[in-house]
């Protein structure tokens, strides 16, 4: 993914968020949908009851699985092969894409249909196939919209969250629709008609994998539109791409995830379609592909194994709940992150999966409010990881000289109370020219960003500790100093 990465990383999160903040359509659309999803999640988890216990069980399952990932991956692969499926391991995005291209070319396929899959975005498979002259069609409604727009998804679950109905109407009209309104029924009817033909003609169906069950070698897909079933049953060849961490040991574990994931993602009690695919079509079965290929992607994941601070990022079940509660995501949307995975999980995952300099600024796009952790159905401490990634940037010398000096200064001042008191006394004097009615209303230099939008309070005439001394003196004299009610 190097070329695209380089192109994106010409800009920083600061530049990209500035653009996003000017886009009122985007911000309105993101606010509207994330708020609706938050409300639904709250309602559906409350209805289930014992949500915290469910979360803790979810955490335990993911923690156990990732701690024994080698064992369960082996079990999964053995079972897939026993059912006649083919398995490939890909060390990185390029290898995964090449593996898939080879399978597709061997089938002499002209048309591939896809259901929604974040990992397929991660390996940029559409671009690779299109370069070989193979038509790729996204069949998830949201993915279809952004494919027509030539964009990346801006949300893990709702790829076109940033699009308004009227923008979608325009995209569909450009794709050949006539007399469209902005009515949901109208819009989906067009997509349905356009996609039906693709399903029937496709040579290859491509899906992701929400969970891979080790005990049976099954691939489990959670979808809502039915397109996943079309993609995985109609074409003769089915290619699954999955991150190596998608594993669950047993169907009993899946039950817990089937409760956690849809509620966390969209506030549904159950996903509309939960498909369990075990091997290709068997002789006695009517539907299903002749061939099942499963590409298991590493792409930086295994580097997190054994890392005390970051291994838990592999627990993620890609529900997007952290995006829906994130106040930063709410204002800048997904594209500002410049990465396939946006929001808090993206700000942690992306710099971990990409070992180079790119994306190392993403962990700063957080006020560390902790809403992501609170929302996470498997309790990934994303706020702690964001801090740890910033620490890693400091250790690896990625931070700016001025910032390092500022914190050297902080250390000098705050390590000793005597020095701290002297510096604060000096600062009280030095601030005088800046004050307007006890406030600092404008500044130059590093604090300008603050004062452009906010007034800053002045340092008080005397510090609390000075005041406390006079309060104590008053008490010693037997006066109440005003503290009697």
């Amino acid at each position, binding site marked *: 993914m190097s070329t695209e990465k380089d192109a994106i990383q010409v800009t920083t999160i*600061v530049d990209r968020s500035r653009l996003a903040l000017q886009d009122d359509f985007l911000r309105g659309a993101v606010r509207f949908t994330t708020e609706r999803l938050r409300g639904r999640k709250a309602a559906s988890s409350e209805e289930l009851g014992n949500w915290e216990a469910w979360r803790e069980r979810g955490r335990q399952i993911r923690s156990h699985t990732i701690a024994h990932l080698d064992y369960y991956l082996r079990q999964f692969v053995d079972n897939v092969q026993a059912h006649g499926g083919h398995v490939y391991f890909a060390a990185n995005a390029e290898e995964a894409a090449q593996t898939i291209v080879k399978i597709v070319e061997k089938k002499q396929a002209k048309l591939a249909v896809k259901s929604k899959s974040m990992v397929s975005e991660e390996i940029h498979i559409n671009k690779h196939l299109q370069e070989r002259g193979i038509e790729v069609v996204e069949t998830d409604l949201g993915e279809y919209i952004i494919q027509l727009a030539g964009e990346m998804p801006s949300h893990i679950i709702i790829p076109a969250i940033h699009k308004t109905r009227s923008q979608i109407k325009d995209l569909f009209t450009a794709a050949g629709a006539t007399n469209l309104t902005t009515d949901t029924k109208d819009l989906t009817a067009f997509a349905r008609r356009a996609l039906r033909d693709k399903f029937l003609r496709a040579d290859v169906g491509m899906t992701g994998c929400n969970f891979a069950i080790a005990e049976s070698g099954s691939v489990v897909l959670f979808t809502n539109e039915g397109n996943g079933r079309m993609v995985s049953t109609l074409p003769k060849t089915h290619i699954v791409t999955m991150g190596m961490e998608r594993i669950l040991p047993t169907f009993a574990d899946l039950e817990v995830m089937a409760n956690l994931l849809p509620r966390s993602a969209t506030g549904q009690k159950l996903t509309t379609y939960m498909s369990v695919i075990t091997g290709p079509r068997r002789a006695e079965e009517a539907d299903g592909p002749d061939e099942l290929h499963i590409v298991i992607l590493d792409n930086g994941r295994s580097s997190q194994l054994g890392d005390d601070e970051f291994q838990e990022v592999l627990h993620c079940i890609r529900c997007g709940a952290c995006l829906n509660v994130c106040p930063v995501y709410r204002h800048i949307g997904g594209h500002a992150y410049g990465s396939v995975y946006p929001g808090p999980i993206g700000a942690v995952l992306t710099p971990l999966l990409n070992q180079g300099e790119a994306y190392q600024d993403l962990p700063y796009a957080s006020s560390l409010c902790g809403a992501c952790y*609170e929302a996470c159905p498997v309790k990934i401490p994303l706020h702690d990881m964001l801090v740890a990634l910033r620490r890693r940037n400091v250790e690896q010398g990625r931070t700016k000289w001025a910032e390092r000096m500022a914190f050297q200064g902080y250390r000098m001042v*705050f390590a000793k109370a005597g020095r701290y008191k002297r510096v604060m006394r000096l600062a009280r004097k030095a601030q005088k020219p800046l004050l307007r009615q006890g406030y600092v209303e404008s500044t130059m230099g590093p604090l300008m960003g603050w004062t452009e*939008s*906010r007034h800053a309070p002045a340092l*008080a005439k005397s510090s609390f500790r000075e005041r406390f001394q006079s*309060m104590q003196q008053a008490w010693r004299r037997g006066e109440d100093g*005003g503290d009697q*009610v």
Partner: protein
Amino acid sequence: MKVSLFITCLVDNFFPNVGEAMVRILHHYGVDVDLPESQTCCGQPAFNSGYVKEARAAAKTLLDAFDGADYVVSPSGSCTGMIHHYFPQLFQDHPIDSARARALVDKTFELSQFLVNILNVTDVGARFPHTVTYHPSCHGLRLLGVKDEPLQLLSHVQDLRLVPLTGANDCCGFGGTFAVKMHDISTAMVSEKADRVVESGAEVLVGTDAGCLMNIGGRLRKQGQPVRVMHLAELLWEGMQQGKVVSR
């Protein structure tokens, strides 16, 4: 009962009234208050930016200051949260300091927690005849688990009308260095928060963290909004004085 104040660098330098109100409330309940001089800052600005050594140097002043304390009480959920959530980790490589850090965690409380859970006070006898809305600060709420305590205290204040704040649990956009480093995003966040405070119709915004209040208050002032911004300690103490006038 003896309490040592962890005053926090923000209240010490910018908002001494908050400290004074806190001391007077504690005194009212017969608590002996001292202020160990060697404390400076919990280290959060450096820690959250990834500067661990620098954070530890500041945080160490708290270990030194509060070794002998029975209880440590602070007017900030965020700074108390820093102690609870990160101090054990910050000092984990040093056997003595890590034990001191754990001991500090066990005896450190945010003011509303201390009043409600240790002193068992929910009604401070205050009267505050104003419309008030409450912003729960993120770190108090999520790192420390301060949820009901401020609301319990506010609900017993006579004549206080508490009005809901839409999106109350959403961050105000302060985040320490975040507000400087990512100031465009921070501005978008604080603008929305300030708008919602105004929409709530409250005359007074109350909270338990000086950082958030400085942020939201600074935005409201820039916009010329006449909402009064108060720390919970200030509101309670002002109300206690008013309560006195009425009862006599």
